[in-house]
């Protein structure tokens, strides 16, 4: 027997109390489930409507903001400079004047020295012995630049060009003479020397602006390219990407390095402009920024014209960068550059000019920005696909490309293979970010189907949501993705009949929960009256139904408890507690040890 004297109805009351709690919880849960599921996607929308929603493409808006945070640190770098071209090939010795052949042969032999210091020393001695020989200057300048000795390279190249006027003669002639070609040794040498000088100036804080030499080679290459390309078909893969063979070399390259290309020259000119403070004369501007009238102008063409007009009104602020944009526009007007470095730098130039500080709404209309973003995505895709950068630039390129991927809305599944190759160029700590970006792209594409697609009979419900692989980044990304999905779903709902639109709005609000609503959804709701809006928001809110369910559960519990209390009272009235205690005491007397 228990030592404690307890009321005879205690067990009955506790059981009854537990039953009231259970019934109240069940009724609250049942009410909540019924109300929420009735207004959810599964039951509020027809199968046809859900199929349509499942097929929607979700643009990266909010998710792009979240993804940009992933690459906010460590994924943005400098413009990528195209390196110097390869050294001349031995065959060049036969192409120069006979008087120069011995020294050229010696220079080529010196250039083949495996030790860079010895190579440079021997080339420097030969350069001093044959001043004004641009071929030896190119050999020495290239060797110095390859060794990272940019100031010396700049000095040697500048001195070499100062000692001769041959380069100016050739550049001038290239604009008009039909006899010159890119394969000419003299032309090739001049191009390589000027390019090397540009690289040397871009790769250090030189006192001299780089664009003089860079513009020179472009000025030379442009007419030569046009002549070379006469009769070819625009749009071919190699169109506009002209390889400029090193002196004496075939166009495939030389001395273990790929040939210099016209893209390298454009790339460095663009980089030079973006870094500098170039200011042209009115004549220069008129010539550079003049564009023929087009029936179907590209987005970059429109952006350039708008920015030129704005710059003209603003006393040509950021003129150098405008020249860079002009050059990018020229390159892209031909076709997407078949060069990862130039594509990446072009994206940076576009980002510079579409930044809201430099591109107010009257210049960058929503339509223009949409078109420019499309072009931007193409350039990023091109950069991933080509990824033709030198070994030294692979890390920087991979980080830059990953950063740009985060702010793009391109279909990442198309570059998954390229991304896996680029992934290896990243340090281990940054590989995860690229993986997450690719996963996020796939998740974004799969999200509408996961949310809306009606389940086929017998089809197992996918248990893992598409964004689950994002790990610790999943929650924030998912919230942003819901906003993006809600935006396209709201656009879809705007086209539906009123009854279906209302059901869709409730369902959208329900799956959105406390997540930020997109402007499209708010706009659509604003078309309704205040009370309708209020009713819509309340019926869509799980918190509202939770509160109501708790209240209902509490009321049910109180009612059941009320009944319980009265039944208990009714039972207790008919019990003599005296007799209960009497029996208890009698029990103690029978078994004194318990008391």
């Amino acid at each position, binding site marked *: 027997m228990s*030592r*404690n*004297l307890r*009321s005879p109805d205690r067990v009955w009351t506790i059981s009854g109390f537990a039953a009231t709690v259970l019934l109240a919880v069940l009724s609250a849960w049942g009410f909540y489930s019924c109300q929420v599921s009735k207004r959810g996607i599964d039951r509020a929308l027809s199968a046809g409507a859900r199929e349509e929603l499942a097929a929607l493409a979700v643009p990266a808006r909010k998710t792009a903001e979240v993804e940009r945070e992933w690459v906010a640190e460590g994924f943005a770098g400098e413009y990528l400079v195209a390196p110097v071209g390869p050294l001349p090939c031995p065959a060049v010795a036969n192409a120069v004047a006979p008087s120069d052949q011995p020294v050229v042969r010696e220079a080529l032999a010196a250039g083949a020295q495996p030790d860079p210091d010895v190579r440079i020393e021997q080339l420097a001695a030969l350069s001093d012995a044959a001043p004004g020989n641009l071929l030896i200057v190119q050999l020495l300048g290239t060797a110095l630049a390859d060794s990272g000795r940019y100031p010396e390279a700049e000095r040697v190249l500048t001195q070499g060009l100062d000692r001769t006027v041959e380069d100016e003669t050739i550049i001038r002639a290239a604009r008009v003479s039909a006899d010159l070609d890119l394969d000419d040794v003299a032309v090739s040498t001049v191009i390589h020397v000027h390019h090397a000088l540009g690289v040397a100036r871009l790769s250090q804080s030189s006192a001299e602006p780089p664009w003089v030499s860079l513009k020179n080679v472009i000025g030379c290459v442009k007419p030569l390219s046009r002549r070379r390309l006469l009769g070819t078909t625009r749009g071919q893969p190699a169109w506009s990407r002209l390889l400029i063979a090193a002196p004496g070399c075939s166009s495939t390259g030389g001395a273990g390095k790929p040939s210099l290309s016209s893209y390298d020259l454009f790339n460095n000119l663009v980089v030079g402009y973006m870094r500098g403070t170039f200011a042209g004369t009115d004549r220069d501007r008129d010539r550079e920024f003049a564009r023929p009238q087009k029936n179907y102008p590209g987005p970059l063409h429109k952006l350039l014209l708008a920015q030129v007009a704005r710059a003209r009104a603003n006393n040509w602020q950021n003129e150098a960068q405008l020249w860079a944009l002009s050059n990018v526009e020229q390159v892209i007007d031909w076709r997407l550059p078949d060069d990862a470095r130039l594509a990446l730098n072009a994206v940076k130039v576009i980002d510079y000019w579409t930044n809201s500080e430099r591109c107010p709404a009257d210049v960058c209309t929503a339509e223009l920005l949409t078109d420019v973003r499309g072009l931007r995505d193409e350039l990023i895709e091109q950069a991933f696909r080509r990824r033709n950068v030198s070994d030294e630039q692979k890390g920087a390129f991979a980080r830059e490309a990953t950063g740009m991927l985060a702010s793009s809305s391109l279909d990442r599944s198309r570059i998954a293979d390229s991304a896996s190759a680029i992934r290896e160029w990243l340090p281990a700590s940054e590989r995860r970010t690229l993986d997450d970006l690719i996963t996020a792209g796939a998740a974004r594409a799969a999200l509408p189907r996961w949310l809306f697609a009606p389940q086929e009979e017998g089809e197992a419900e996918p248990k893992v949501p598409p964004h689950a692989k994002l790990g610790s980044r999943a929650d924030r990304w998912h919230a942003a993705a819901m906003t993006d999905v809600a935006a396209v779903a709201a656009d879809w709902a705007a086209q539906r009949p009123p009854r279906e639109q209302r059901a869709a709005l409730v369902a959208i609000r329900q799956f959105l929960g406390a997540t930020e609503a997109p402007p499209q959804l708010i706009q659509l709701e604003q078309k309704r009256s205040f009370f309708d809006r209020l009713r819509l928001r309340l019926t869509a809110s799980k918190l509202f139904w939770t509160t109501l369910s708790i209240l209902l559960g509490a009321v049910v519990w*109180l009612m059941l*408890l*009320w009944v*319980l*209390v*009265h039944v208990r*009272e*009714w039972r*207790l*009235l*008919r*019990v*003599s*507690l*005296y*007799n*209960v*205690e*009497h029996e208890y*005491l009698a029990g103690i007397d029978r078994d004194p040890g318990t*008391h």
Partner: protein
Amino acid sequence: MAQYQCESCNEPRDAPICPKCGADTKLRGDLPNASLEQLVERVSRNAAAAEAAPAQPPRGDDTRSRPSAIRPELVSVDSPRVAGADPVAPAAPAGIVGLDEFHALLDRGTKAVILCGASYSGKSEIASGYIRANSAYRGRAQNLTLRASLRSDYVLGATNPGEVWFQVIDNKRAFLDPSGEFYKWLSREERQRLGLTDDVTEANFQFVQRAVSALAGIIVVVDLTSTVDRRQQQPWRRQEEDLKFVLSALRWLRWDKEARPEAIGVSTNIAQRVSTLPRIDKRVLVLFSKADQLARLTNQTPLELARKRLPTLHGALMTHASRFRYDFCNTMVKTAQGDQAVDPCGVLLPMDWLLDDPLRWLPLQLPTSWIGGGR
């Protein structure tokens, strides 16, 4: 003014009842022209006769056989319940022993559990028995509040006339155990027997007035061993009548805030007003004490007993109380050597019902009379 003489105290009095001993006095004119020696002899004889007639057990608080404190009726109170009276000064509990201390407890937020019942019905023993039972069965110790009268073998003895005893239950509640004498002064029959022709006054309720405002529950103690005539249909009619008045008075005290016109007496006022007032909202526990001597009666449920044999009390409860229940109890047994304290029986669980029901907060509870406690 008429002059009276108390024969017990042998002192002149202004009232027909002696304020010192509570005994009946006689008009001065009734006294024979006796010598001083004769008078002394008469007083001595009366005293001897009183001692030789132990009509009550040794714990008696019979006001006529023992000296009493000041009678409640004689306490001068200007009650605000009377129209035209000074509303500023609430009645000072002058003369009621222990009331000041109890009121100080109420000031601390303590709620009162009022014990009602006739003298010798066992009110104090029930309060004390609850403390003992709680300690023995539940391991919850509580100090017994000291009281003036001597105790032996855990027998408390009667509460002195003119005294309220109280017993702290916990930090929130305390029993208020007034002397049975206070209830006796409210009894119509007792007043008639004492030859009091005037009505009760607000001062008669002073012992319980503040406690009713801070009410936690009411315990009505009925001594079924004390009968008018066992052969009658209602052998406990007198107790029933007294308790009926007490219940109506408590209801009136708790709810009626309206001033009484001076011309209307208190009893009339209660009778007229009480039906308009809400029922007593706190639980009322009716305990049939001394159940050890009621073997035949305890075979039935206390509700059945009350319905059949105490219809007046049952009717009063149905009328004045919202929630009530009946039960038997005993805290002592009668032996040849006198009363002896035993483990209380029928005290703890009924008190749990009264004090510790965890669901008492539930609103809109039906009156007991609606859920099987009616006729």
